[in-house]
């Protein structure tokens, strides 16, 4: 049986960040099912695609990433949302983790670190699926 396709939704208002993260996602063999440059589109795309993993910026126009996170978790408590942001203050990190974010990746990390953390996030998905 072949490996299951990992479907990722990407929400970031910066084009160059989306380009970079999209490249990482594709080079790992995962599929980008949608890209949003604001919070409202991110939520709409989540509802449409129900991705395996969502990479979410915090400072998004129209609706912030943490507001979108609240709505996603309310609708789908099993959702896997990883925050990918420059915001590193304790309060925001704790709040996002309290709201149900699976992980919190700082954009200031090297590309290799982001790649590694993304792999770990996907691996944890596979582990959860195989657990009884």
């Amino acid at each position, binding site marked *: 049986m072949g490996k299951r396709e990992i479907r990722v939704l990407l929400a970031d208002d910066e084009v160059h960040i989306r380009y970079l993260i999209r490249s990482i996602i594709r080079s790992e063999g995962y599929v980008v099912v949608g890209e949003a440059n604001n919070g409202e589109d991110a939520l709409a795309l989540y509802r449409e695609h129900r991705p395996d993993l969502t990479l979410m910026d915090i400072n998004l126009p129209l609706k912030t990433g943490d507001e979108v996170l609240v709505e996603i978790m309310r609708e789908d408590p099993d959702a896997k949302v990883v925050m990918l942001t420059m915001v*590193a203050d*304790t309060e925001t990190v*704790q709040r996002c983790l309290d709201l149900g974010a699976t992980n919190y990746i700082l954009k200031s990390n090297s590309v290799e670190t982001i790649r590694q953390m993304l792999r770990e996030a996907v691996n944890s998905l596979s582990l959860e699926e195989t657990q009884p």
Partner: protein
Amino acid sequence: MNAKFDYLKMKQEIVEDEKIFKAKPILLTQREIQAILVERKSKDDRRRTS
């Protein structure tokens, strides 16, 4: 008299500095965030097994 005035001014400055210090957000590194996640996960595991 001057010494007393200076003392009060100094005390006021300390209060102001504390306000600024408390208002300043504490920024975390990726390593610190990972440590928080590990701690949360082990707490969840303990809660689940107890």
